[in-house]
Every structure is written in structure tokens, then in C-alpha cells.
């Protein structure tokens, strides 16, 4: 399976990365090189093998339903949340106008 420049562009668009023609051309070769190499995985017989779900045997812990139990994962910290925003406006994050 090889990918062409149109595919490169499609992936870049899905990943929201603007790319120039030159970059698309360069990436076509690089990606094909890498993808061609990883395709050797197809040789492995995986009959009856489950995909890995947890690398170390461990079960998913669940949290109690308590508000702001730990300030690090709780709310009421708008200043901290907005502190690094490129455009914080009136308590909101500002983004270019979206037309829905």
C-alpha cells in the first residue's frame, strides 16, 4: 500500500496541519518509507490473539461522585484555566467566529 500526495493532503487536513506542496511532496516519500516498513507486521500470525488492552494487569478504578474533591481535578479555577489563553474574553475563550 503506497500513498500519494492527495492522500498526504487528506491526512494533513484530518490532522489539521497546513502543508505546502513542497512539504506534501517530501512527506509522500517519508510516509511511504515508514508505512512500507511497518507493513511487515502483516506477516505475523495473530490467529486467536486478542489486541492488547492493558499492558500491566490492572483494573480501571472509579472515582466517587464528589465535586472538587481534589482541587487539582476540580472546577472553580477559571483564572487558572484561562491564564494561558491566547484570547481570554469576559471569562470565555475567544475563537474566530464560527458559522454553524
Amino acid at each position, binding site marked *: 500500500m503506497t500513498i500519494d500526495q492527495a492522500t498526504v493532503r487528506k491526512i494533513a487536513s484530518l490532522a489539521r496541519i497546513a502543508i505546502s506542496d513542497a512539504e506534501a511532496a517530501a512527506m509522500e516519500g517519508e510516509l511511504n518509507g515508514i508505512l512500507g516498513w511497518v507493513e511487515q507486521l502483516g506477516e505475523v500470525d495473530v490467529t486467536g490473539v486478542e489486541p492488547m488492552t492493558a499492558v500491566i494487569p490492572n483494573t480501571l478504578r472509579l472515582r466517587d461522585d464528589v465535586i472538587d474533591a481534589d482541587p487539582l*481535578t476540580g472546577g472553580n479555577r477559571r483564572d487558572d484555566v484561562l491564564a494561558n489563553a491566547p484570547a481570554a474574553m469576559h471569562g470565555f475563550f475567544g475563537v474566530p467566529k*464560527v458559522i454553524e
Partner: protein
Amino acid sequence: MSDYRIKGETGEWEVVIGLEVHAQITTNAKLFSGAATAFGAEPNTQVSLVDAAMPGMLPVPNRECIRQAVRTGMAIEAQINKWSRFDRKNYFYADLPQGYQISQLYHPLVGEGAITVEADEKAGIPEPKVIGVERIHVEQDAGKLMHDQHPTMSYVDLNRSGVALMEIVSKPDMRSPAEAGAYVRKLRAILRYVGSCDGNMEEGSMRADVNVSVRKPGDEFGTRTETKNVNSVRFVMAVIEGEAKRQVELIESGGTVVQETRLYDPDRNETRSMRSKEDAHDYRYFPDPDLLPLELDDAFLAECRESLPELPDAKRDRYLALGISAYNADVLTAEVEAARWFDTLLEVGLATGAKPATAANWVTSELFGALNRMGRDLTDSPVSPEQAAELLGLVADGTISGTIAKQVFEKMLESGDGAAAIVERDGLKQTSDTGAIEAEIAKILTANADKVEQYKGGKEALFGFFVGQTMKAMQGKANPQVVNELLKKALS
């Protein structure tokens, strides 16, 4: 079978409907963070570092969200999957801080179940219908965008971001707007009984994505469209009606329906394409590597099951067995508050001797009528079930007549006083004093000698006239049965 049909130029068309209902799970904190979920807070105040997807932040699931989704699944007798997983749905939008929504695609928490909607002749549902539920999964809600605050900017509020939702996916089993409406209402009732969602559609706690296609009866399914985020039962029905018509007209004029996402505009009552958002959607779902598989043990499941309340169907059956009419049983079980109120009334009311059927009639006519006039509902009813039981008890034991009961009820609403106290104070007790009644009867028969002649001549319908006159003379306080007996004796 629904006989709902769209009449096109080429004949009759059947509409096929599936619904994906997003229901906000009632919890204090969000699905993966400790931020609060309450509606209407100042923008971005209920946002944790996790919800804002700051670098290095990680999700830890809230047990209550899982518990409520499992209980909901049990309430519709669905398969509960003891092993499930969270997946990431990847896409870019300003209301989605992580760049992905944590959801469940491959292994949902709840599998197949079903919801039965009751027969409703008037709505074209001649008999109860079972609507299949494909699955229920748990996922994060997105934030909110505001477009009208600034000329060139949109504002992002992440308070909703990360709030837990259940997505309840039906099978394409509905065939009319009425069935879809009944399904949403029934689902809403179940969620509210279970306590897993408040069902508040105005505040966005419940929204439906409406999948509609049309076909000639007996044909294969047609291509469907999906109208997103419809937030009332009325709108769901309007979308189906409008969309089915649009599709029929489109097909009959030579066009084809494209599988697409549409948006409903309630002001214009029409849907329009959101093709702009369709731009090569490829969500790249994969298991969220920040979370391990969710494994539920038997103790957890047992607690979920044991904590389930009596559900609408079971309650309705119980009411029917108590001799309550089907209509009243439907009305009383539709809303969990009404059902709870009525159950309390049954408990205390039965002790006073009031019959369940009588109590049901009184609630659905007298009480609901009064609440309607006052613009209130049961949650802020001025009359408690205990007070109502007292009133109904007075009727049941013959202390007052039904007519007087109406007066007493009005006075209860005005004053907040108890029924017995009002009856005592205003001297409204029903009398069986035969002497007093016979005296009034004698006067009435004398004053209406002509009618007595006619009655005796065979015009028996006049009996009611004499009863009415007697009751009136007794100011409604006479025991109707005693009046009947004495009148019959006097007229014979």
C-alpha cells in the same frame, strides 16, 4: 402496526425512524473530573484542568455515571456488559478541548434492550408496541459556543464539557411521528423513575438525533438522514413529519436522498443540511489509552439492580389490578412525581377506606384541574397526599357527599386547612336524619303536586328532579341514599 403513511404522487410511503437520545446523567461531578455539573453557572467556572484539556491531564471515571447507566440498562431489561471500554472519537471543534470525545464505540456498557409504548388509539397506535434499544453507551458532553457576543469572535464556555451523557440508541423500529413521540416520552419517564436523568429538555438534559428514511411499504430501508440535537418531543415529531415529506417529494421528483446530517430550525419548522460539517468525517475511533477496560463485578451489578424503583410498566399493571382505569393508570404513571404522590395517597388513603379507583379519578380530575388553574404541578401542590386522603376518607365513610367534597376541596386550597376541620367548622357534615329529610320532602311534594301527578302517571324521569330539590333544600348535606329511599316511599 402503524398505518401512518405519506401520500405521494406515486402512492403511499412508509416512514422508518430511529432515535439516538442523549441524556445527561444526573450526577454531582463530571464523567472524568471533579468539576460540578449544575446548570446555569458563570462561564468556565465549572471547568477543571482536565476538562480544559491542559497538557498532561488525565481522565478518571466517576462511578456514579457508570452506575446510573447500568441501572438505566437494567430498567429496559437490557444486556449489561461486564466488560466495556472507552474509545476516543477524534475531531476538531472549538467546543471539544481534547480534540476527541471519550465515548464508547466498540464495547458499549449496555447492549440490547427494549421499551414498550402504550396503545393510544387517538394517536394511531392501536396496540402497545415494543421498540428495540440497540445499545446505551456513556460519553462526554461538549462545551458551548456563543456567536452573538462579538462581531468577529465566538466565545467558548466549557462548563458542559465533560458532563456525562448516556447515548441511548433505538433500533429503526418506529413508523410514525406519534410512535417516536411516545417512545421519547416513555424513555423520559423511565429515566426519571430510575433517577439517571432529570429529563429536562429545556435545559438540554435530553436531546435526540432523529434518523428518518422513507420506503414503499415492504421495500428495503431507504437512505436515512440524521437531524441533530432536537430538544422537545413536539420538535421530534415535527422533524419526522417534515423530513419524511421532504424525502418523498425529493424521490418522486427524481432526486435521491443523501445520507447527511441536518439541523432543525424550530422557528421555520424545517430542517436544513449541515453539509459544511460533513467535510470528510473520519473519527478515527480507537480505545482510549488513558483508561483501562471497565470491568464490573457482581456486587456492583447487584446493588444497581436492588436500588431500582418500581418502573412505569410495573406500576401501571399494579394500578390496573387495583381497579384503576387504563386512562388514569397511564396519566398517573407518566410522570414520576405524580406516581410518587399517588402512591403516598394510596398508602394513607386506603387506610381511610377510600377506593383506589375513586382516588385516581379524584386526582386526575379534581386535583389536576385545580393545579392547572393555578399553573402549578404536583411538586408544589398546596394539598399533600395526606390531606387528600383525609378528604377522600370523609367521602368514603359517608361524612360528606361528593358534592360537598368539591366545596371542601376549594376551601382547602384557599385556606390550607384540613378537610375534617373545614367540615366541622362550616357544618358540612352529611345528614341521615330521616326526620329532617322527610320534612323537606313533604314540603317539596306539596309545592310540586303537578309533577307528583305526572310521576305517578308514569313519567319516572322526574324522580331525579325530586332528588335534586331535596338535596338543594338540605344544602347538599343529605345522604343521597337516604334521600332516595325516603323519596321512593313518599311517592309510592
